[in-house]
């Protein structure tokens, strides 16, 4: 697994990814042609993948986001060093913080 700040990418075995996820249309890319995994609302800084691939939004145990990189790729962010990613499927996990009675997502 690969961690860039508050985002963790957990590799998922190809045969474990449900067929309905593989059939889903991917999320649109941003203006710079990147797949945006997480966006800082105020700064506009993003954990993003400029590479060929697909980002699928999937609520439930596999979601909320799955990333497919058929040729491998690169995870970039304005404030973190880039990470080279081997080809395959990944679950995208956002870091969270505990607050009594609930929890909230961390944003960097």
């Amino acid at each position, binding site marked *: 697994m690969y961690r860039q*700040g508050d985002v963790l990418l957990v590799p998922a075995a190809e045969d474990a990814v449900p067929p309905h996820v593989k059939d889903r249309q991917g999320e649109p890319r941003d203006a*710079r042609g990147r797949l945006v995994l997480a966006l800082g609302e105020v700064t506009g800084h993003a954990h993003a993948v400029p590479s060929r691939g697909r980002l699928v939004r999937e609520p439930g145990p596999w979601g909320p986001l799955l990333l497919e990189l058929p040729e491998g790729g690169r995870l970039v962010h304005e404030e973190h060093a880039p990470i080279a990613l081997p080809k395959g499927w990944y679950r995208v996990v956002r870091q969270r913080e505990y607050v*009594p009675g609930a929890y909230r997502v*961390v*944003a960097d």
Partner: protein
Amino acid sequence: MNDTLPVDKWRAVAAATGPADRASAEEGVRLAYRLAGLPEPQEIRWADSPREAVELVKELTDQGRSVRDEVRTRPWADERRRVHDELGPGGWTAHWSATGAMLWDTTRALADRIRDGVTDGPEPDRARLVLLDAVLGQHDAAWLAAFDGRGDRLAGLAAVAEHAGWWWPYERVAVVCERPVELHRDEAGRLDRGDGPALAFADGFALYAWRGMPVPSDFPDELAALTPERIRAERNAELRRVMLEFYGYERYLAESNAQPVHRDETGVLWRIALADDEDVAMVEVVNSTPEPDGTYRTYWLRVPPETRTARQGVAWTFGLQPEEYRPLVET
């Protein structure tokens, strides 16, 4: 980033502060009426904040009926239907994800907080009724981003939003608000300020918040004078949490002589016992990418009180079991 993109432009509109461009906003109001097939309003009146606007509307006697439906709701619904038909259901969903959806949560939350602030006063029910007639101007940015560049039908609404705050269209009178003079938000887009109002308008209408949580207006003064004793004495758990965050966990830990509970390769686990409340458990983790000055930023994340090891705490922040958390690369 290419700042001519609609979503970026509207992100800036939603967060704009400072004096309205009254001439352009008024031209937008008149255009919106004309596009709705209505005569222009005879009078346009200005207010410094939504609260003042609600008071002003309450005092109006011959404004005529609300024309919000004709001016905003119907053209909007028509545009949505038109774009939806043009793009198809999947295309519309993709278009919305790339435009309005990116602004929706934060602007809606902000508008909700302003509404709560306006109704938190005398005659709340009356204020609520007046608010039903409001067009949200700059805070309609999400929808306007989705329709930007797809026709001129909403040009009047867009012009008001770009140049002013909330507004109230009535048959004979339009009431338009200035934008806030202060708006402070955190990375997640939540209202956030420790040394003054997070949102303030020129007439003094203001909202105080820390990382999105509403706090009393005298709270910033209190934050400036915090001591560990004052924090321990605070009975309201939410305010105490805010105090702890503002004071700094690290400083609080040092001054209360807290001891690390556990340490491993993922970080350090700390614990503070609080009277009449669950323990505060925190993991101290170090950012793996150096700052420009070569130092590494340490940060603190609160984790569930039953956490026993640093690894368990860090794994929890990603929804994983301690044995599952094995990052190969961290930056």
